[in-house]
């Protein structure tokens, strides 16, 4: 019985360590996950939000993508999924996923920092071409 008690101390120890890992892990790596509308509202309310890492899900505006020749910097505009008048430019310096394009309604999640000059500096871009996965009957007919 005595040893079992010791054992439970061990179990508690493991549980504590895991909790600690999660706690510090979350507090040091968490990022806000917002829509463009929420992002703009937040930044107006609290300008320090420009310095916080955020993740924003929106849609690539059609025809907005460009990339200067030889420059490894992509520019495109992201709009809100609901209110399309809310939009901001994005800069991204790495390889875009294959699913990314600016000719269809492509949903993206951009992760990075919303700079004071109103440009979103992305470090990660994930794209999902929602309309491409499944179509309605009307779309098939069209």
């Amino acid at each position, binding site marked *: *019985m005595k040893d079992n008690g010791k054992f439970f101390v*061990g179990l508690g120890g493991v549980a504590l360590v895991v909790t600690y*890992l999660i706690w510090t892990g*979350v507090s040091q*790596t*968490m990022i806000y*996950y917002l829509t463009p509308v929420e992002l703009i509202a937040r930044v107006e309310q609290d300008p320090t939000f420009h310095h916080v890492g955020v993740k924003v899900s929106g849609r690539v505006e059609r025809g907005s993508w460009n990339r200067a020749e030889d420059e490894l910097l992509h520019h495109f505009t992201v709009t809100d999924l609901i209110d399309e008048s809310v939009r901001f430019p994005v800069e991204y310096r790495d390889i875009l*996923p294959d699913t990314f394009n600016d000719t269809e309604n492509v949903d993206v999640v951009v992760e990075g920092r919303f700079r004071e000059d109103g440009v979103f500096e992305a470090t990660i871009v994930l794209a999902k071409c929602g309309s*491409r996965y499944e179509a309605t009957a009307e779309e*098939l007919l069209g």
Partner: protein
Amino acid sequence: MILLGELALWIALPVGIWGAVAGFVGGRKERGDLVLSAEYSVYAVFLLLILTSVGIITAFVTDSFEYWYVANYSNRELPTFYKVSGLWAGQRGSLVFWALLLSFFSSAAVFTNRAKNREFMPYVAGILLTISSFFLVVLLFADVNPFERLPFAPADGRGLNPQLQNYWMTIHPPTLYLGFTAFTIPFAFAMSALLSGKLDTRWIVITRRWTLLSWFFLANGIIFGMRWAYEELGWGGFWFWDPVENASVLPWLTATAFLHSIQIQENRGMLKVWNMGLVTLTFLLTIFATFLTRSGLIESVHTFAENTTIAFIFLAFMGLMAGVSILLIAWRYPHLKSENQIQSFLSRESAFLFNNLILLGAAFTIMWGTLFPLITEGLTGTAIAVGPPFFNRVNLPIGLALLALMGIGPVIAWRRASRRNLVKNFRMPVLVGVMVIGALFLRGVHHGMALLTFGLSAFVMTIIIVEFVKGTKARARIEGEGYFPAFYHLVSRNRRRWGGYIVHVGVVMIFTAFAGVAFNREVLQTIDPGETITIESPFGHEYVLTYQGLSSPRGENMVRQAVALMTVARNGRPVESLRAEKVLYVKWESSPITNVGVNSYILEDLYLILENVNDLNGAFENDAGAQRATFKVQVNVLVGWIWYGGFVITLGGIIAMWPSRGSTTPAPRSKTKTEGERPALAARS
């Protein structure tokens, strides 16, 4: 054929429900005729689902675009191989496929156990058919019927997502599904042991084998998925920490925990409730994985279209299953008392228990991180996400602890390890581990966590090798055999143990490969034909890649492709050239797909991505002026060891699962075992 398939799907549901009811009632009232009927229902559902699947495949192969599902996932020019894979390419087909595999395993379980484990059968059949019926209800009533017709027949389908047109992608989902569905069998036997009150070690023995099978498929499915991500997604990595990837790892982690903790139950009669809990949890996690993929509840690259009906049905089902399982365990709690207690911290039981806790801890952190946006949004209204940095950070120490336990567990004594046992078994492996760290440090490896991983890997490998050598030598001496026959007999007499060690070797290789990521190098550069990119490997040699230009050959189901050719020199000596491509698939003209080029060596991969072609349309036209392009070149250190490790795991898994001649009953637990005795004798199966 298609109509027959549709009809079969509708017939399967009542048959399944009837069989489930017959099983439960037959079991309670001990009515042999009803039980027999339930067993036949299991077979019948399997046959009906074969017809359904054949129907769907026929619809794909015959380009029957009047079916919504076919129109969305195929096109005329799609190679037949990929048309067949349409069965699991989308939401609707994959649900059928899931049910098919489940009914296949159900039939296999009933067929192989109905004679020797008669008393489990009624409930096993009942539970399996309940779960099958659940999937059939989803298929028929949740707006995902694969046979739904369009009001017209389009001339052509919309085509298969080109990222799915890859060899690994055709085998990754089925393998994973095999793993998920196979775990339903352990769950069914566990629940039926609770229902029938037959709680001796028999259900454990049956369950153990099926768990191993499920675990084996899950491990392979996850590794195939990594391979696909590495080759197809074209970003140079193999793991995203994407919600769906995470969801597939969760049951694997808990199944791993279970495979270890049942050994404690078999050898020491402890942890009975814990094991029941692990079986239930793992089963629920397999359902959770498919729920996450199908509900669209969490943003993921894997999810199918959002479907709230399915989300609701799945949640209700998981809740019901969890509730019933907990009630059953509580009901039989008096029969699940421990026969022994842990005697010492320094014992194998204790090592296994810590292994269990840490595996569950890992599962918990991954689940937490995956659901974090949902939790925070529910609580505060603002979603907060955690990404790869969180998962890597948290799971690194957890992984290292597991690695250490992988060395300690197999050689520490049961009950209470003596000082002699510890010194004898661990002196040399610790020494080897420390020496490996020292040697690597002197060679210029200064990454702390990577060094620790390599050191621990060396520690574990030494322990395993010593075990094999000792076992072989002892056998050769006692039986008077040569070393090779002695080795063969050693392994074949106790496949589970030695197969398990081989699996450990594979896992260690994969851990080593993960540590290799710390040393990856990459270069991003825009060049014209004739120009070169130079990249230095962390091993000291240098690659020079010379761009030879773009060409535009025709390929199957492709509109166009641009293929960049690079000749490669390693330290000045020419080696195999690399091809990197941008491909436009039929029906997917707006998104060119990137195909990477890889040269694999034992310790590293040279990995080439065609990032961008300045004038892609010009390149497609073979325009000589449109050749300037941007490349990313990577040296990915040790990445091949994931695939080699996967191969070793497969080998070890097959050895461990290979049916042994004769009995499947466990050796009786020895009551006379003394301290420090080799435990292998009792673990024979």
